[in-house]
């Protein structure tokens, strides 16, 4: 098959061929696979001049630097994630080696206290946040759409936005070192060491803000992946039939959605304590220190599985491929993971066994903790039994996956020690814990490195060097055990110290040697992979025997829209590629048990910034007979990058906002750029075809963008829940009934309740008007909503003004802190709503939303949610 002009290919696909193609695509190896530069631009008829101005006409070729700044394609974004995460691996690794070098002798001779504590803290954060999950999500970005039969993620631009938030959050973290030093209170950031009284450096605030931006990245990403994985699976690919890697990612993103919302709440509160002067985590606040531990570990324990699950998925895929056996007890394996994912939210207090929590709660959490370890037993045995009667090939990916399992078993066994609370009491804060979680987490890294070798030929079309790969594994495995095993022997060393008992010196030196060996092993990998990128053997289709998953049925690397052979389907029990006309008939007949639906294309405007140009187009008319496919998918947008830059500036400015000067300028520039970026993002015509036929359980009948909004709102529930929970916790610690509401009387609050309820009603009227195609009604209702929202804010401002005059400010005490911050977060939601409203009103004035009222509907979902939150804040903060 020769390389062909995409126009021709498209025309041909659309025109003549109806029969399923033979899956010979695996042998096509175009050297240049992007094809984007050959594309004709998308002329979208009703885009105004403004819209056109914001449009990137085409995706530059792979060789162009510009491509990497504008691409929204899931494979490009996947590559960006992988490369960036490996950069952070080096960053975190160098910090770790600095620590190990310091520990060569029991005295402080290299770094000194402050630098050592920064190295400890940022090493932990970089590895857990900026390396582990992003590497896994590089794979997920690349492989999940391919494995489920989608052409891209549901919201490609939001996917690019996630990446840019991720990159810039990492750069922000780097910047914090240059603002008097980064955060030095450990990756767990225990209170009250995390407040400025004890860590006054500006850089510490920047570290917190960097994490907050990372949380934003994860949240956007979770919404995107959940929508994609629930609604864009090829026909026949029910949830139970999903490949194991995809399964682990599905569970990971579900956990991320809720866990990171809790972390987000914790970080917003911490930022407020650091920048605005609230006193949640101050040493004087009753329960403040414990509150941080609760919030952090409510996130932190699921986080352990969040970073480990993708590795488990990679291991499962590699075990199957390289043993030539299907996973033993697959159904139970999946069930075990589901149980772990659910239960992960009910074990967090085992990190707090030595705090002042009561014995009943300790017992309860001891039981749930032991309970959650059992499903892992099952998974380990399932992997081991898969080897039996296999045809095991010890190639590099398998060596890493096999090594990962061995390391994980050791990590698991030493974890059972910690499950016995009496032992946990003694291990708390010692190297036993350090060794244990490195065996588990870096065990996970081992699996992911296996994934890197496994998918390298898929992502590059070139094979890595097998000998160097095996050498990497040998060095890695020896280095790993030399590094971490001595820590079990020297377990009585307290964590995060650089002076230790001289009797432990040999073990720490052994450990340091292992650390450098482990680091050096990665040099072998970087050399191998970089060299193979140019000089590796070309991969003829599928390099591995016994793969099953769909990414191996397309060329390596896959072309821009993934499936040159036609649309993938499992409707007849195995993977086939259908020509477009066959797909059209599928759409019409609603094949496959009603799981598909005639659907409409959508933009990925996220919530409500949908452009009218993406008005519903029936799929049948989506294929242009003239051969210049007007509605083909868009793959390029500069705005995610712009918004990412804006976030970087704005947060860097925020870190020093109390210093004034340059920081204020940065903040202003960031906010301005962000506004421009978001508006342009909204106006830019960006076409994402929705799948004609797909498995959509359990969200059939909820259009992609609407599902995205709802999933986001679910995470917002946890965000507000954590705020209200924090308030309740501190109030319990203070003495519930001894606590008086901050406002003297509930009436300003009642007035605001009336205002918000009425504005909710006005949004309902707006939607009714849009459905009746009444422009005046629509604009009028939206304007009324806007005015009511403004009135809400004005009323609140007046109320706050009075309270300030009485000396009740944010930093008066935790009672006022909780009041201002919780209702302030709500007010911020109102402000965001008002900004969106301005956008809606501007477009409605020009006749928008009469043909497609969905943006108004989705805005309503958000606005009503904000209303509902107030319905609870009002009694909690004004009446009782």
């Amino acid at each position, binding site marked *: 098959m020769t390389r062909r002009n995409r126009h021709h290919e498209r025309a041909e696909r659309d025109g003549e061929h109806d029969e399923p193609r033979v899956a010979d695509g695996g042998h096509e190896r175009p050297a240049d696979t992007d094809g984007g530069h050959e594309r004709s631009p998308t002329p979208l008829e009703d885009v105004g001049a403004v819209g056109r101005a914001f449009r990137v006409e085409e995706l530059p070729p792979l060789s162009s630097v510009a491509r990497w700044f504008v691409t929204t394609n899931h494979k490009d974004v996947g590559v960006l994630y992988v490369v960036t995460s490996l950069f952070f691996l080096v960053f975190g690794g160098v910090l770790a080696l600095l620590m190990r070098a310091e520990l060569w002798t029991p005295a402080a001779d290299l770094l000194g206290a402050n630098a050592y504590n920064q190295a400890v803290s940022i090493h932990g954060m970089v590895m857990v946040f900026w390396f582990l999950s992003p590497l896994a999500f590089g794979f997920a970005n690349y492989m999940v759409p391919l494995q489920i039969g989608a052409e891209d993620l549901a919201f490609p631009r939001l996917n690019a936005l996630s990446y840019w938030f991720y990159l810039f959050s990492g750069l922000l973290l780097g910047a914090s070192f240059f603002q008097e030093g980064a955060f030095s209170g450990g990756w767990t950031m225990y209170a009250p060491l995390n407040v400025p009284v004890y860590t006054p450096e500006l850089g510490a605030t920047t570290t917190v803000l960097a994490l907050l931006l990372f949380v934003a990245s994860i949240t956007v990403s979770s919404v995107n992946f959940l929508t994609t994985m629930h609604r864009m699976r090829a026909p026949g690919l029910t949830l139970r039939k999903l490949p194991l890697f995809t399964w682990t990612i599905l569970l990971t993103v579900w956990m991320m959605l*809720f866990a990171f*919302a*809790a972390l987000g709440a914790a970080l917003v509160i911490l930022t407020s304590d650091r920048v605005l002067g609230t006193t949640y985590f101050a040493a004087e606040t009753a*329960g403040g220190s*414990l509150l941080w531990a*609760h*919030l952090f570990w*409510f996130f932190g324990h699921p986080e352990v599985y969040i970073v480990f699950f993708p590795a488990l998925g990679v291991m499962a895929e590699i075990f199957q491929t390289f043993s030539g056996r299907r996973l033993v007890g697959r159904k139970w394996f999946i069930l075990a993971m589901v149980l772990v994912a659910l239960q992960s*939210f*009910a074990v967090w*207090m085992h990190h*707090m066994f030595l705090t*002042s*929590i*009561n014995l009943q*709660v300790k017992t309860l959490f001891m039981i749930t903790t032991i309970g959650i370890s059992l499903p892992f037993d099952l998974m380990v045995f399932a992997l081991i039994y898969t080897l039996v009667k296999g045809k095991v090939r010890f190639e590099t990916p398998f060596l890493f996956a096999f090594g990962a399992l061995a390391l994980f078993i050791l990590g698991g066994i030493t974890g059972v020690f910690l499950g016995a609370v009496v032992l946990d009491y003694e291990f708390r804060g010692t190297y036993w814990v350090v060794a244990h979680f490195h065996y588990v987490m870096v065990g996970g890294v081992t699996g992911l490195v296996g994934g890197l070798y496994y998918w390298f030929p898929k992502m590059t079309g070139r094979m890595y060097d097998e000998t160097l790969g095996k050498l990497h594994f040998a060095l890695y495995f020896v280095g790993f055990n030399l590094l971490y095993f001595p820590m079990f022997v020297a377990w009585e060393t307290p964590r995060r110290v650089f002076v230790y008992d001289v009797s432990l010196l040999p073990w720490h030196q052994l450990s340091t040697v292992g650390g450098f060996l482990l680091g050096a092993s990665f040099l072998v990998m970087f050399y191998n992979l970089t060299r193979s990128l140019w000089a590796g053997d070309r991969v003829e289709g599928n390099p591995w025997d016994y793969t099953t998953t769909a990414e191996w049925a397309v060329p390596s690397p896959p072309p821009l829209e993934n499936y040159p052979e036609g649309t993938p389907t499992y409707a007849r029990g195995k993977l086939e590629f259908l020509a477009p006309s066959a797909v059209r008939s599928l759409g019409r007949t609603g094949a496959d048990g009603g799981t598909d639906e005639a659907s409409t294309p959508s933009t990925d405007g996220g919530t409500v910034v949908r452009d009218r140009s993406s008005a519903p187009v029936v799929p049948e008319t989506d294929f242009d007979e003239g051969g210049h496919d007007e509605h083909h998918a868009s793959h390029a947008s500069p705005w995610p990058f712009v918004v990412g830059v804006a976030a970087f500036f704005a947060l860097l400015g925020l870190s020093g906002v109390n210093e004034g000067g340059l920081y204020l300028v940065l903040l202003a520039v960031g906010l301005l750029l962000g506004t421009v970026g978001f508006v342009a993002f909204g106006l830019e015509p960006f076409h994402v075809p929705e799948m004609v036929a797909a498995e959509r359980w*359990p*969200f*059939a*009948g*909820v259009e992609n963008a609407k*599902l995205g909004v*709802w*999933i986001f*709102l*679910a*995470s*917002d*529930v*946890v965000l*507000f*829940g*954590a705020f*209200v*929970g924090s308030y*309740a*916790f501190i109030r*319990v*610690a203070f003495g519930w009934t001894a606590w008086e509401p901050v406002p003297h009387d*509930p*009436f300003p609050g*009642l007035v605001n*309740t*009336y205002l918000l*309820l009425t504005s*909710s*009603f006005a949004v*309902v*009227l707006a939607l*009714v008007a849009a459905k009746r195609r009444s422009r005046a009604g629509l604009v009028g209702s939206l304007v009324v909503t806007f005015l009511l929202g403004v009135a809400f804010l004005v009323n609140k401002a007046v109320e706050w003004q009075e309270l300030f005059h009485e000396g009740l400010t944010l930093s008066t005490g935790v009672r006022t802190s909780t009041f201002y911050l919780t209702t302030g977060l709500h007010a911020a939601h109102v402000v965001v709503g008002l900004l969106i409203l301005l956008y809606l009103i501007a477009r409605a004035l020009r006749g928008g939303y009469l043909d497609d009222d969905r943006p108004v509907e989705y805005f309503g*979902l958000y606005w*009503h949610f904000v*209303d*509902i939150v107030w*319905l*609870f804040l*009002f*009694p909690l903060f004004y*009446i*009782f």
Partner: protein
Amino acid sequence: MSRLRLYVAIYVVLFAFATMQVFVEGLGLSYWTGFWAVIGLSAVKALLVAGYYQHLRFEPRSLSYLMLVGLTAAVVLTAAAAYSIS
């Protein structure tokens, strides 16, 4: 048209409940009875808004479960944390 009337009726109920909440204090109930009565009123209002204004009643049930999962997570955090120090 009937749908619009429904929305209006719900609005009236919401307005009335909000007003009632402020006056529960004057009923002479014990602190916790009053507290749960007011929170109960808020819950009913929230259900009305979610069920009709956000039309969850007319959406696939899975969306309601999605929101319930989020709510459960928040309640578990709040309840277990508060219990741990009481």
